[in-house]
């Protein structure tokens, strides 16, 4: 079973929910797919045992065969190739690895070569099999790295995916094969607005979902009103407590000290199982 944790707005508590839930379950696989800013291992503290570089293919121009006809740069929708007199310029970061340039070249002057965009780390902690994607600094595309990360998924385990913030490509790639999605929000106008966007995405993808309200207690009731109006289950409300914020700041999962939340996370998990 695959459960992803997403939010729309950043900083609402995705990693808090994902890590504390994972620590409560057995036979768990944890996938941190926020490859731009992965934080889950700050809390899980798994020992990384192996690292794998992730590569994409980019065009490799054979200058001897190339007659600078420009068909490759005309075809490329991403402006990753430019043909200037007697030279083909390749812009690796812009390339989406579609293979089109190789196909259209009339002189078979284009092959491919590999380029590293990031890495996947793997480790273990207690009963958790941990995977982490890390995008290289200056790289644009998170999606190929997330795709590689998803190949590690073993659906017979309890798989928790910690998704990136936002609502576009990296989020969709992270959650689109999930059996259930937990949307974490906070009771503020920003939290509500971005929750609505996230709800549109999970509905669009036809994924069953529920909401966890984090930092409950601002007095802003509209998030709950929205959920009840839309018939969205509220799985839990995590209180706005200084102790929880302090533990977070130190990289400590709050269930380690607020042990009553173990039970609560087991209940959340059981409720999710019922809904799918």
């Amino acid at each position, binding site marked *: 079973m695959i459960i992803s944790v997403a939010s729309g707005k950043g900083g609402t508590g995705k990693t808090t929910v994902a890590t504390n839930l994972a620590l409560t379950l057995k036979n768990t696989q944890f996938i941190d797919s926020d*490859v731009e800013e992965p*934080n889950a291992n700050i809390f899980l503290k798994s020992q990384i045992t192996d690292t794998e570089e992730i590569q994409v293919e980019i065009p490799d121009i054979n200058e001897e065969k190339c007659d600078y006809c420009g068909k490759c740069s005309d075809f490329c929708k*991403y402006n990753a190739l430019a043909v200037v007199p007697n030279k083909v310029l390749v812009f690796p970061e812009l390339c989406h690895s*579609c293979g089109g340039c190789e196909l259209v070249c009339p002189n078979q002057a284009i092959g491919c070569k590999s380029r590293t965009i990031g890495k996947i780390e793997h480790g273990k902690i207690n009963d958790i099999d941990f995977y982490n994607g890390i995008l290289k600094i200056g790289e644009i595309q998170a999606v190929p790295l997330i795709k590689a990360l998803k190949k590690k998924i073993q659906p017979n385990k309890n798989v928790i995916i910690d998704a990136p913030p936002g609502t576009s490509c990296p989020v969709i790639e992270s959650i689109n094969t999930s059996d259930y999605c937990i949307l974490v929000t906070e009771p503020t106008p920003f939290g509500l607005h971005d929750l609505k966007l996230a709800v549109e995405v999970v509905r669009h993808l036809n994924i069953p979902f529920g909401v966890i309200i984090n930092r409950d207690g601002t007095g802003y009731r509209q998030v709950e009103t929205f959920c009840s109006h839309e018939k969205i289950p509220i799985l839990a409300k995590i209180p706005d407590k200084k102790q929880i914020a302090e533990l977070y700041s130190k990289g400590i999962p709050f269930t380690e000290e607020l042990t009553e939340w173990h039970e609560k996370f087991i209940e959340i998990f059981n409720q999710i199982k019922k809904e799918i």
Partner: protein
Amino acid sequence: MKELTVISGKGGTGKTSITAAFASLAKNAVLADCDVDAADLHLILKPVIKKTTGFHGLEIAYIDFEKCTKCKKCIKYCRFDAIDENINIIKESCEGCGVCEYICPSKAITMKDRDSGLVYSSETRFGPMAHAMLKTAEEASGKLITIVRENAKKIAEDKNKDLIIIDGPPGIGCPVISSITGVNLVLIVTEPTLSAIHDLKRITSVANHFQIPAVICINKYDINNQNTNDIVNYCKEQGLEIVGKIPYNKNFTQAMIEEKNIIEFSKDETTEELTRMWTKILAFIEDK
């Protein structure tokens, strides 16, 4: 004309609340919301939209089933797994490369524009604003951000504004890079948590990679003194100036609930520090 982008690496450190405060403090600026994925600045600035234009992101493949012979060559050549067994295009996976159109022997595939979002030029009580809306499950947010920034520049030229303040997205990838390339200064908003510090280091490396000058704001600096000290030491090592230390203040949320920025909402130690920070940032931008 100068550009300032507010970024953070980690989400939820206070980028938008601080950008909204700058809207009050800046004298002659255009505001731009480049967090097009989850745009929130408009919730405080309440823009009145003056002009709307459509945004076409990547193209998308369309299949003419009258011409299609189900040879499935397109499935074989698509690197994005965007065509299923029944030769339906999976909208969320198609990156618009055009390989299927090229490879189809019966010319059954054509690439078409997709309506990916809307671009707005607006007026707010603080001055003009450029923003956008990305439609659900659409891609190409990097391209949309570039268009918002171009729009902001055009507005600034037309209205004689000398500064563009950009509310950036979280992360370090495509949308962030589109939001910061070529700007005069980035303000990195961090907070004293281990997660935010980890992300601060990565976003600082990105700014360095693209050779963009950066200054730091520590938001909620008083929630963990040890971590705040670690940030101060890291900034010293890196030669990064800390332009502001903002205390934890519930007024940020209360102001947001009343659709105000904190400068409009209250006057206290926090708003004084924000005002001092803005003066320092302006001095940095003047320098660049």
